[in-house]
């Protein structure tokens, strides 16, 4: 398969599709969609922010599930999926926190709010999976790392709803100036750019995860070859 390098590999097709979908989503969000009644121009970042957030949570969920499957089956493929998905999840969560702050500043009047359970939960999840990535990078390629990282991958995800509920209860029982987020009704003017954004980020996720898993597999093969060469 390597003899004739084809440009029409599945990876390239997904990459081009992700790029095209991103352009379309941006066009729909910035040019096509009308200003929102209350927030004016500021709501446009929603079309990037919300899809990023949903795909970020999806990546972390995939890390947790793949970690569980890896512990059961011990097939390295699942560990690579968990690792790659955590990396992409952390990058997307960073984007979520940044775009959320950019939106919050003009609309809420603050970059950050400790009384919003979603914000705090996202921050805690972000830190948990940075810890996951640090465990992996600090343990190097020690044999047990895939197992111990899988445990963190699962615990960090289970903590997400528990944290959400705790922060919610904390806000609810301890009223602070609550910042109401605008609840837009999903009319088609909003739904179409939103769905385009979703499609763009899902394609981007699939493209990146395939790429990252291949790099990880190549790295593992290289390590195995090096270990074999040293053993001789």
């Amino acid at each position, binding site marked *: 398969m390597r003899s004739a390098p084809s440009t029409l590999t599945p990876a390239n097709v997904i990459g081009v599709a992700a790029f095209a979908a991103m352009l379309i989503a941006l066009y729909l969000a910035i040019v096509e969609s009308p200003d929102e009644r209350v927030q004016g121009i500021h709501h446009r970042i929603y079309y990037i922010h919300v899809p990023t957030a949903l795909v970020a949570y999806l990546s972390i969920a995939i890390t947790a599930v793949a970690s569980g499957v890896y512990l059961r089956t011990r097939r390295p493929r699942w560990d690579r999926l968990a690792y790659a998905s955590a990396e992409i999840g952390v990058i997307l969560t960073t984007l979520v926190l940044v775009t959320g702050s950019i939106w919050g500043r003009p609309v809420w009047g603050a970059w950050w709010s400790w009384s919003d359970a979603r914000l705090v939960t996202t921050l805690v*999840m972000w830190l948990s999976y940075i810890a996951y990535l640090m465990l992996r990078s*600090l343990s190097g390629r020690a044999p047990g790392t895939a197992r111990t990282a899988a445990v963190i991958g699962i615990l960090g995800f289970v903590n997400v709803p528990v944290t959400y509920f*705790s922060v919610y209860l904390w806000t609810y029982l301890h009223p602070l100036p609550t910042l109401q987020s605008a609840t837009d009704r999903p009319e088609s003017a909003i739904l179409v750019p939103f769905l385009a954004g979703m499609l763009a980020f899902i394609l981007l996720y699939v493209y990146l995860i395939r790429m990252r898993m291949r790099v990880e597999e190549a790295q593992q093969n290289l390590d195995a070859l090096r270990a074999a060469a040293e053993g001789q």
Partner: protein
Amino acid sequence: MKSPSQATGPKNTPPGYAAQFWLLLRKELAVEFRSRETAAPMAVFAVAALIAFQFSFDLRGAVLTLVAPGVLWVAIIFASLLALGRSFAREDERGSLEGILLSPTDPGALYLAKAAANVVLLTMLEVVIVPLSALLFNLQLLQPALLPTFLLGNIGIAGVGTILSSIAAQARAREALLPIMLLPLLVPVIIAAVRATGLAIDGRPWEDIQPWLAVLAAYDLIFVVLSALLFYATVER
């Protein structure tokens, strides 16, 4: 886990889950009481932290009742890192974990014994620093609602901290990794324990404190059961 040789006589059958837990817990506590390498440093560290907080926040008057629950729990959680870090590092230094794992021990029982030993250490720490804080800061810390708060908080800290200690012990930079992994996971415990402690100090009725105790109990249940089930993956060799 039964091998043919163990199945020959009743005397050779390995002890059951509860017996294993009890034996391992006694071993943990015996090691600690003979070496005294964890309990005393924890207490000294917590008192030193309280002094640092006193001069960082000028704990007087209205500030005191607002900040005291958080100060107390942060001191406890930071001190807990000393016990949790030692929990598996000690085994690692002596290569003693291999011996336990070679015996027909259930990893879940090992986890629960280690976690219970850490709960005992945390409780001992609080027996020292809670009355001391009441004395030093003139706080109403002798409230009955604080008993379940501290117990459930300890179970949460030790429950998650013990499995993370086992993970960190196998990595490089274990001293840095343990708090990095532990603190985000403990956010619900910090929220609930600090709130419950604050409400108890304010002398609020039982109904106000109860939701937070429920959060702590739910957290403990979820994470202790999950950790007991997943622990085997962290000690496989």
